[in-house]
């Protein structure tokens, strides 16, 4: 059967476009996605508070809610420094300590709201090798050292840091491990006078257990948790972000004025 010539023309066009796209895409990945920090503005403008929300997918939800609540206010710039599926357990996969240095150099911020740990309930790796088993005393010590490194880097850079604790999860085992991590964050934060914002009590029901549906701030029951029993719905993100903003308000006067306006 003779081979038709015409299909090659679109194929060549697509190949050219593919090559062009590859050239665009590769340097972009090396620099990190602009979407990660596209909203960032340099801090330092009078009256402008630049808040970076940092961490994993839980932080992304908080950023999303905070962005929709505060970004329209000229006094705030809400920046996203989140990377899903990352944590402190696998620096060989994603090194938060190093990333923070790079991000701060590129975009100075006034305030950082950090939450991380969803993906850390596993062995800790050192130089790409499994080194500390979850549940062991060594794991706790090494994990705390990693948390402290992050806190120290942000404090040395002069950023006002708020560390947000982890919420309860549907899985009891997962929750128990996260509760242990919360104790580590809280202890490290207390030592450095970093405000620690617990989410546990905000995300449990009246019996103190996990619930997918909880009352919102008007007292109406809404679905707060995603189907995975880990992440939050839009209403759920608003619920935990409200707790975060409330806890931040004594330290960030501008937030207090916003909340006071809403209370009225």
């Amino acid at each position, binding site marked *: 059967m003779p081979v038709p010539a015409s299909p090659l023309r679109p194929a060549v066009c697509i190949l050219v476009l593919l090559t062009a796209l590859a050239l665009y*895409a590769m340097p972009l990945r090396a620099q990190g996605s602009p979407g990660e920090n596209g909203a960032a503005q340099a801090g330092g403008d009078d009256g402008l508070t630049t808040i970076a929300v940092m961490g994993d997918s839980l932080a992304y939800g908080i950023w999303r809610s905070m962005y*929709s609540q505060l970004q329209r206010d000229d006094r705030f710039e809400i920046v996203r420094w989140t990377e899903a599926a990352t944590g402190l357990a696998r620096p060989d996969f994603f090194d938060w300590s190093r990333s923070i240095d790079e991000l701060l150099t590129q975009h100075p911020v006034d305030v950082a709201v950090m939450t991380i740990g969803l993906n850390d309930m596993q062995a800790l790796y050192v130089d790409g090798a499994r080194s500390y088993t979850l549940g062991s005393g060594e794991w706790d010590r090494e994990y705390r050292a990693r948390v402290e490194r992050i806190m120290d880097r942000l404090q040395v850079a002069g950023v006002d840091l708020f560390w947000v604790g982890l919420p309860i999860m549907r899985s009891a085992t997962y929750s128990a491990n996260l509760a242990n991590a919360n104790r580590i964050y809280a202890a490290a934060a207390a030592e450095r006078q970093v405000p620690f914002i617990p989410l546990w009590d905000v995300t449990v029901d009246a019996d103190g257990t996990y619930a997918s549906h909880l009352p919102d701030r008007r007292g109406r029951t809404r679905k707060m948790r995603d189907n995975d029993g880990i992440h939050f719905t839009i209403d759920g993100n608003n619920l935990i972000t409200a707790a975060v903003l409330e806890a931040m308000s004594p330290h960030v006067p501008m937030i207090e004025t916003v909340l006071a306006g809403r209370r009225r």
Partner: protein
Amino acid sequence: MLFPTLDFGLFFLLVFALAWGLKDWNTGRKLILVAASYAFYAYWDWRFCGLLLASSLINHAAGMAIGNSPDRRFRKQILTLAIAANLGILGFFKYYDFFILSLNDLAFQLGIERELPFLEIILPVGISFFTFQGISYVVDVYRRDVRPQASLLNLLLYISFFPQLVAGPIVRASVFMPQIEQPPRADRILAGLGLILITIGLFKKMVVANYLATEMVDWIFLDPYFYGTGDLLLGVYGYAIQIYCDFSAYSDIAIGVAALLGFRFQKNFDQPYKAESLRDFWRRWHISLSTWLRDYLYIPLGGSKGGRWATRRNLFLTMLLGGLWHGAAWNFVLWGVLHGAGLVVERALGWTRQAAKRPLWRRALAGLIVFHFVCLTWIFFRSADLDGAIEYLLGFARFDQPVEFATPLVLSLLAIGFAMHLIPGDTIDRVERALRPVPLWLQGALCGIAIVVIDAMGPEGVAPFIYFQF
């Protein structure tokens, strides 16, 4: 298990080897495919498998009862029961929360503060798709379009077949059953076509759809308040291309994977933004769903047999229910209403008649109008809620805002998306024919290289397909 992952690659290699290894023992092949499909589904949540099995057992029993009974009344009763069971399962998982929420809100407005209890219901992925397949099977048996399947194994495979289990295409029993009754012949499989579809699908999803989403669309739809006319236009064009590349990619990969296993499914998308009328659009977009809605909703409602107004009502209702199927939210309802109303108006004005005989400029103009109408409906579809959609539409009046997203990357992706609609419709078939002289091992190797390149080009992370949520 998502298609563009190493997990799926390894899973498929194993299934491929086992299925073809057992080609001379058809029952064994079917057993392997059923086991693989349930394993594929259990990867999300093993508890869903019980639901999949229950759906298959209900439809198998109903099909046998309908097919083996000469009593028309009894057959109709069983059909009604089977449809009610299918829709009951779908409705419970998909709409229970919305129903309770709406009742509670209504009660609150009436001064009743006591709330009805919510349940923690997890929507099983793909439930709509396998439910629709189940309904089509029992209706087709009732209509005597297909024979009832005495073999439970056949029906288990039909309902659960993993390539199209979670996001379609919706395959009819009349297409599927003959293909499993006979073992496939290795010399007749469309391996080349399968490899081309998989490669194109991965490119559309991992490069075009994912970049458009992360570089532009997600930002603009997150808060349209910050953007002006130019960016909002780019945003909706971007979403139009993103959802096409995302959804059609799933179908391409599903059809390609099925082809490698010896199955032949019809295409689910046919250059939809080339449509010159809304009716034409729905013949090109998600074809398996629109034909399903036609055969199992529009026609049972009366189709076009009841006169002009009844036809318009049926069209409108079909699209409204199609909108509601996507989710219990007002923006999906409006999306369906707009499409339904558009189809009614178009029909009333006779725009669909003799479209092919119009001069080229009129056809191009019609295409532009239809595309922009579809884009308008996408704003409702993509926005988080109705307020967000209205905010988006109001933003089109902000002419003074600078355009931020017209980057070379975004414009190239849009150009690729539109170019997919301008090339001849049979390009893939022609490329497949052109590649036939190339040995299959070399085609496989080229496909492998292409996948590695695509993986390197796409943004990091694997975003789920948009239609998994429906």
